C-alpha cells in the first residue's frame, strides 16, 4: 500500500492520474505533461512535493555535524541561506543530493529525496558526530509554487514582504494564514518558492494558492512535468543521473563540492579524482536524427558502448529530443558526437550547452 501525502484527496478531486512513485501514491499528471510544463514556463504551477523527507540537526554542534556529511559548505553560508549539496558515501558516490537550510549554526534543516529518506536518515544518524539528527519527514508537507507568476502569487498571500528573500534564501512566515518555511528554491528553472507546512494545513494552502492564482493560470502539476522541467535544466535526478557510484565531479557538480572546506565524507576520494582528472562526465546532448532518448539506452562511439543515457525526453519548451548521460571525458566537450542506441538502431547525437532551456 503506497503512502499518501496530505494532498492525496485534493489530487484525486482535481483529476490527477495517480501512480506509485518511490512508495508514494502521487499524481503523474493532471491536464497533461506538455500543458502542465508550459504552464510552469509561462505562468505558475503548484507541485505537491510532500513526499520529500526532512531531517533536522539542532544543538551547539549542528552546523559542524551536518557540514561533515555534505559537499557544500554551511560554514560559508549565511543564516537564512539554503545550499544544494551532495551527501556522499566513503567512495565519493552519492548517498543522495540534498538541500541544506541554515537557520543558524545551531539549527540545520535538510530536505532529502523521498526515495532516499529512510536511507539518508540512517546514514546521517550513524555518521553524524556531536549531534543527533531527527527525522522530521512526517511533520512537513511541501508545496512548490513555480513559474514567472509564482513570486507575486505567494507574495499576495504572505504576511510579510518577500523581496529580500533572494534565490536560495528562505524565511519563515505565513502564507494564506498557514505557518510556513518560505524557501526561494525549486526544481524547474523558474522563479518560485517551496513552502514547508504542517501536514494538516497543506490542503488549505493548496486550495488557497489555486484560488488566488486562478487569474494567473495557476494549475496543479504532476511528476511527469516535474521531470521534463528539470531535464530541460539538466538538474540531476537521484537514481537516474546521480547514484552511489558516480561522484559529483563526474556529474558536473563540482560547484557544490567545496574541496577547500573542512573534511567531509568522500572528500579524500574527490581530491584524488580532481588531481587525476575524471574519466567520464555527465553531459547534455540532443539527438540530431529523429527519436527520443530514454534512460538506460546505450551511448555508442564507433559501434562500441561507451556510456549510458541517464535521462531523456522530448523537451516541451526546447522542442527537441534531449538527453543526459555519462560519456568518456574525450567525448564530453560541446559539439562532440556519438550515437544513442534506440531499439537496436544507432541515432546520431551531439553534446550541447546546458541548461537546454534558456529564458527568452
Amino acid at each position: 500500500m503506497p503512502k499518501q501525502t496530505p494532498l492525496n484527496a485534493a489530487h484525486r478531486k482535481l483529476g490527477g492520474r495517480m501512480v506509485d512513485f518511490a512508495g508514494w501514491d502521487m499524481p503523474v499528471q493532471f491536464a497533461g505533461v506538455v500543458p502542465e510544463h508550459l504552464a510552469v514556463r509561462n505562468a505558475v504551477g503548484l507541485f505537491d512535493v510532500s513526499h520529500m523527507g526532512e531531517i533536522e540537526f539542532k544543538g551547539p554542534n549542528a552546523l559542524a555535524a551536518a557540514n561533515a556529511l555534505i559537499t557544500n559548505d554551511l560554514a560559508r553560508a549565511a543564516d537564512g541561506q539554503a545550499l544544494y549539496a551532495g551527501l556522499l558515501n566513503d567512495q565519493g558516490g552519492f548517498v543522495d543530493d540534498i538541500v541544506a537550510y541554515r537557520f543558524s549554526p545551531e539549527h540545520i534543516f535538510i530536505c532529502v529525496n523521498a526515495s532516499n529518506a529512510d536511507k539518508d536518515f540512517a546514514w546521517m544518524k550513524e555518521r553524524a558526530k556531536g549531534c543527533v539528527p531527527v527525522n522530521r519527514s512526517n511533520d512537513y508537507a511541501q508545496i512548490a509554487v513555480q513559474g514567472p507568476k509564482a513570486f507575486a502569487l505567494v507574495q499576495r498571500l504572505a504576511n510579510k514582504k518577500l523581496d529580500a528573500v533572494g534565490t536560495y534564501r528562505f524565511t519563515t512566515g505565513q502564507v494564506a494564514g498557514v505557518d510556513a518555511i518560505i524557501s526561494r528554491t525549486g526544481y524547474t528553472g523558474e522563479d518560485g518558492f517551496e513552502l514547508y507546512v504542517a501536514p494538516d494545513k497543506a490542503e488549505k494552502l493548496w486550495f488557497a494558492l489555486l484560488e488566488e492564482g486562478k487569474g494567473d493560470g495557476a494549475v496543479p502539476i504532476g511528476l511527469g512535468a516535474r521531470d521534463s522541467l528539470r531535464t530541460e535544466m539538466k538538474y540531476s535526478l537521484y537514481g537516474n543521473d546521480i547514484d552511489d557510484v558516480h561522484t559529483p565531479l563526474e556529474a558536473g557538480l563540482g560547484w557544490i563540492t567545496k574541496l577547500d572546506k573542512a573534511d567531509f565524507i568522500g572528500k579524500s576520494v574527490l581530491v584524488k579524482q580532481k588531481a587525476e582528472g575524471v574519466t567520464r562526465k555527465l553531459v547534455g546532448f540532443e539527438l540530431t536524427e529523429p527519436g527520443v532518448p530514454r534512460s538506460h539506452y546505450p551511448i555508442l562511439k564507433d559501434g562500441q558502448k561507451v556510456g549510458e543515457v541517464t535521462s531523456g525526453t522530448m523537451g516541451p519548451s526546447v522542442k527537441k529530443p534531449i538527453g543526459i548521460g555519462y560519456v568518456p571525458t574525450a567525448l564530453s566537450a560541446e559539439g562532440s558526437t556519438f550515437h544513442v542506441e534506440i531499439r537496436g538502431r544507432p541515432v546520431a547525437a551531439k553534446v550541447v550547452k546546458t541548461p537546454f532551456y534558456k529564458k527568452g
Partner: protein
Amino acid sequence: MGNNPGNLKYTKDHEWARKDGGKIVVGVTHHAQEALGDVVYVELPKVGAAVTAGASFGVIESTKAVSELFAPLSGKVTRVNAELSKEPAAVNKDPYAAWIIEIEPSNAAEYDGLLDAAAYEKLLATAK
C-alpha cells in the same frame, strides 16, 4: 460511450482499423491516446514492409512512455502518415483522423474478425 466511431473496427491493443477500398487504414484509439498522454514521437515502418496481425509494426512515444504499435491484421504497408513525424500531437488532437499506416491485407477476412465499436467499448468498460 461514444468516443469510438461505429464505422471502425478495433483491437484489444487499442488500435482502430478502417476499410478504405481494398486497403485498411490503422490508427490508435481515443483511449490509447488518453492513456499515453502527450505523443511526442511515432516511429513508422517503411512502405512495403510486411506486418503480422498482433505483432509490433512501430512505436509510439509519449512524454513518459514508449509503447509498441500492433498490427490489427497481416499484410503489407502501402502508405505511412509521414505528417506524424512533424506533428505527433495530432494523435492526441484527433486519434481517428491521425491515421498511422495503411495496410494491404493478405487475408481480407481478418478485418471482419476485429472488434466492433460496441465490443471494444465493452472491453474498455471491463478493464476499468
